[in-house]
């Protein structure tokens, strides 16, 4: 797979289809890949990597890259194409300056999960059959790939590439892998249980803003949380209220535009399951206003920028909820 991507990148550069390529660059270890812009076939040859650790969604970088002049190629995995199309829809990316190479993907891995499984001091990982073999400073360690997948990949919503100029590998299909199961589990809890669950999670937040800055839907030029005139600026949560406020508003601001790419949870240094907030909005929207997948097409209106006269009243919230049972 990696070889195919490299060849494609080199060909695109050589035949001048594009003058640079956005991809993943090798790091110090086998897993710490950094999104990077490659300018020459030599750079591609030397440093381009596509592996189970190419989790980073490159679509947000195209907001800036598509405005730098010239044409840029980007490798997008299925979930990345949803983010890309959503950004196109919001007129944030200049489509004509981007050459999208769609790549099929069967799940990316979370190095922290691998380490947590007892592979500390890991120096290399290779795939063997369905499993992974980790070489560590303290010997070899085997685990199934399923246990190493990023949370978002374990419940992958779609293998379909919704937008591309060229496809490497096969087109896939949308699928139902039960991504709302965890949300449902929370909904079934009592409010007290939910409250203490979320307090436990959100109290770990260090307000590093990684979730916001990585999010393809968070593309405001200036975030309200940075703007002293917004009345909402805060740099650190001085009170638990501010932890709650930040995460409610962050999720709310991307509601109905969030494609559920899962980057927020992937980058959180404190492993807060932020995607469960976004997914709650998605689930509510699906149930109340009809199924909607952000980024799936160019024509539909995001549900929060739309309405019908017969929409449910907010009081519907009182009647719903598992704790009624």
């Amino acid at each position, binding site marked *: 797979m990696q070889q195919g991507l490299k060849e494609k990148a080199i060909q695109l550069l050589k035949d001048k289809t594009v003058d640079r390529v956005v991809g993943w660059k090798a*790091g*110090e*270890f086998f*897993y*710490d*890949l*950094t*999104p*990077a*812009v490659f300018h020459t076939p030599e750079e591609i040859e030397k440093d381009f990597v596509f592996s189970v650790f190419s989790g*980073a969604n490159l679509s947000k*970088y195209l907001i800036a890259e598509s405005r730098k002049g010239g044409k840029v190629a980007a490798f997008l995995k299925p979930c990345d194409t949803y983010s890309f199309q959503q950004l196109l829809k919001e007129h944030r990316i200049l489509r004509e300056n981007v050459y999208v190479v769609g790549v099929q993907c069967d799940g990316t891995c979370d190095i*922290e999960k691998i*380490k*947590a499984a007892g592979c*500390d*001091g*890991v*120096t290399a990982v290779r795939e063997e059959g369905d499993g992974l073999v980790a070489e*560590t*400073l*303290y010997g070899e360690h085997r685990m199934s790939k399923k246990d190493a997948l990023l949370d978002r990949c374990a419940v992958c919503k779609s293998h379909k590439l919704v937008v591309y100029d060229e496809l490497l590998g096969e087109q896939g299909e949308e699928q139902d892998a039960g991504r709302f199961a965890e949300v449902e589990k929370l909904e079934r809890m009592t409010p007290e249980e939910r409250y203490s669950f979320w307090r*436990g*999670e959100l109290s*770990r937040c*260090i*307000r*590093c*803003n*990684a979730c*916001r*800055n*990585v999010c393809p839907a968070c593309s405001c030029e200036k975030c309200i949380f*940075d703007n002293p005139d917004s009345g909402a600026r*805060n*740099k*650190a*949560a*001085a009170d638990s209220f501010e932890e709650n406020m930040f995460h409610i508003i962050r999720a709310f601001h991307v509601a109905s535009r969030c494609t559920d790419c899962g980057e927020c949870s*992937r*980058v959180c*240094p*404190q*492993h807060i399951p932020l995607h469960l907030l976004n997914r709650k909005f998605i689930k509510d929207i699906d149930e109340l206003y009809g199924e909607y997948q952000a980024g799936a097409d160019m024509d539909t209106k995001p549900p929060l920028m739309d309405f019908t006269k017969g929409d449910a009243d907010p009081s519907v919230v009182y009647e719903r909820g598992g704790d009624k049972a």
Partner: protein
Amino acid sequence: MKKLPLSKIDELFKALSAGQKLYIPADDAAGQAKFTVWQEGLALSQKLNTVRSAKDLFFPQVENLVGFKVTGKQIELIESRDPAEPFVLFGVRACDARSFDILDKVFLAEPADTYYKARRENGVVVTMACTRPAETCFCTVFGIDPTEPAGDVSCWMDGESLYWQANTEKGEKLTAGLSMLEDSGEEAVRAQQEKTREILGKLPLKDLNLKGFDGEHMMELFQSPKWASLSESCLGCGTCTFVCPTCQCYDIEEFNTGSEVKRFRCWDSCMYSDFTKMSAGQPRPTQLERFRQRFMHKLVYFPTNNDGMYGCVGCGRCLQKCPISMNIAKVIKTLGEDKK
């Protein structure tokens, strides 16, 4: 040197937490290690290190400085400093222990920061030697020996026992009250150190070369064209800064509670766009300048001002946590290439 069978470790914790707070690294419900106030039943984390560094205990993320009551044209100062209480910080790794020296250089320099100073004076640091360093560890590059950690007391742990060695007056005083400790020889500790050092010799980053990262090369490093590609995918978040044990930049903010204006300080990050933004202009307009500042500070400016002491301890947290896997090791390697 003293020792204690591990089966009695709760007894030790109980004694340490009598009369003062005891913080130990413990896993929370989601399995994340953090320094937590010990209470009966809390188990020592098996993780190599905490997600957040030990600096929190001396330099918390948010801290009240002072309050103001404003009435008409009058302003009244309201004391709102949290009282400094004695505490024991147990299980600090050698890297974090060194970070306190670095923070001291900043906060204890004249005029000393009295909030930090009070916590430093009230805290007793009990360190724990490493036995299973991770691939991201590179403290040895900065001359730190993780098998011989500094601190008021140094500890070693093997499968059966905890070994305890007081290093300072504060440490001696703490030790004096611990009757469950028995005298011990050093053989077990030396053997363990030997074994750990073997692993240290295999660490992938052990050969990071810091040659040329000094004041003399300040301009050359600052002007390096490589900052552009190093910083190009930086998200401008504060993850590296906030998990870093030596990052110490702060902001002073205010909050109006309705009855009083609370002035507090909180961690800030040079990676943030508003860090240097003034109404009159912005000296670091793009992420390149902000990114460069962070690493120039740790690798060049700080050693220039502090007799060559680097502002990094090689704990590897930024290597593990950066969302885009850009980190100080990559910066050192990339910029260092020019000097070969």
